[in-house]
């Protein structure tokens, strides 16, 4: 019988070597939350053409159990501008939607919901 985290990790890392994992610090203003065993999606280099100006982004998704995201005792959902730091790597990402979509997506079964949060790397 696998644990919730094991099932989530297996689902998120389907495809093998394209994902890594570790602890992240999730921040919204002064609220901070450490989430262990988050899965880091592959970094994707995106180029958008804004009317002749090429804007280059490094995108990355983070996946963790939805129930891990508790601020001030309440379940929370990701918001535009939240920040995610990969602990031990000093890489900071900002929660932003890809192409106007929602900034996160929940997948899985009720009670075992995994949350995929879309981010872009901060300089």
């Amino acid at each position: 019988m696998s644990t919730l985290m094991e099932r989530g990790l297996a689902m998120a890392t389907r495809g093998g070597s394209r994902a890594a994992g570790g602890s992240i610090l999730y921040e919204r203003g002064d609220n901070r939350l450490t989430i262990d065993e988050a899965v880091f999606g592959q970094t994707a280099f995106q180029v958008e053409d804004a009317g002749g100006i090429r804007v280059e982004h490094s995108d990355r998704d983070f996946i963790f159990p939805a129930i891990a995201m508790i601020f001030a005792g309440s379940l929370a959902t990701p918001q535009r501008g939240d920040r995610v730091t990969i602990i031990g790597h000093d890489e900071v990402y900002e929660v932003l939607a890809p192409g106007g979509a929602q900034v996160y997506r929940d997948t899985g079964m009720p009670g075992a919901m995994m949350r995929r949060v879309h981010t872009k790397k901060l300089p």
Partner: protein
Amino acid sequence: MSVPSLTVADAVVTALNAATLSQSVTFERVYVPKFDTASSASVQGKVVPKFDNREMGSAADDNAAIAIDIGVMKRLQNAVADEKAEMDALLLLCEEIKPVLNRKRFADDTAICVGTAQEIIYSVEDVDNGRVFLTAITANFQTTVAV
């Protein structure tokens, strides 16, 4: 023989880099402006020759209308709640740029800036999806080119 649009664009770069502005920014002339949001937290300035329109002026010269785009770009760094103030400061920077160009003569006084136009939010999608502020000032120059 020189290329008038490049001569004017290079003169614009020199003038902007010599100006005292409220935020540190170094301008460079490029053909394709690129902005890497993951590697730079500072303001980036790009100068791009846009068009060169010629009409007959005199027996010896054509009148040339040259447009130069000045792109000002920044990956917003403040918290979302403070991004309006951060963008306000960038528009102030643009207001400082305009008088450096407008009504001024460039390229050994052979070209004069006769006006500017600004597309204040160049890309709404980039502000929303990437927290990237992009604005473009088009500076219009008049000069003559010997035929």
